[in-house]
């Protein structure tokens, strides 16, 4: 199955395309969630629980709930500067990917 959104990686020879694509999709999701949280300058802390990312943000008005949902969040819970992004059990992996981007 080819990624219809881009062909940038298709010319890479000798790579396991499937695993490369899997990693890329995960990174894109982490980047999309980070952007929807207002970017790395807005994220004070991020901690994974088993079903969700618990994020503390500097300015909660910069959090884009619709963008979080379109990035794959099942739901978003907000209490002031604490935003919980419900992503299911991939929270651990996603939190790691987001930490890498911070």
């Amino acid at each position, binding site marked *: 199955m080819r990624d219809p959104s881009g062909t940038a990686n298709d010319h890479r020879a000798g790579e396991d395309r499937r695993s490369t694509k899997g990693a890329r999709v995960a990174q894109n999701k982490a980047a999309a969630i980070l952007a929807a949280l207002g970017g790395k300058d807005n994220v004070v802390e991020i901690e994974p*629980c*088993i*079903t969700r990312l618990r994020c503390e943000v500097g300015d909660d008005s910069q959090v884009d709930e619709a963008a979080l949902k379109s990035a794959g969040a099942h*739901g978003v819970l907000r209490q002031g500067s604490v935003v919980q992004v*419900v992503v299911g*059990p991939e929270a651990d992996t996603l939190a790691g990917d987001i930490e890498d981007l911070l």
Partner: protein
Amino acid sequence: MSIEVRSPVTGLAASLTDVPDPVFSQAMVGPGVAVKPASGPADAVAPIAGTVATLHPHAFVVASAGGTAVLVHLGIDTVQLKGEGFTLHVSKGDTVEAGQAIVSWDPTAVEGHGYSSVCPVVALDLTPDSLGDLREDGQVSAGEPLFTVEGG
């Protein structure tokens, strides 16, 4: 074909809607049943046979070979206990039998820290109509059937 999902703890079965956390009560990660555990130290056991896919001190996911994944969460907001009072008996990636001890804990101690000890048991990423034979009230023992899931 369906899988029998067993109660991870001994206690009182209840509707997931009774859980004081919107992620579970609104079934954001999937449908299931809650169990209010009996008092005192106990083992939480695997609800199905499979592989330990995710493991925290206070919560775990067991995934069957057919892809059905069941999440057990021991208490609400218990991530904030940072593992205190939870003793793990398996590692991530281990193969487990239904009914096998996964974590020892003490629901009474969890409540002593100010958290609910209720245990959501959730079939991840499924729709409510995939579940059958739900037990949402009455006493259940650890290892007894709680609900069934269509699938493998």
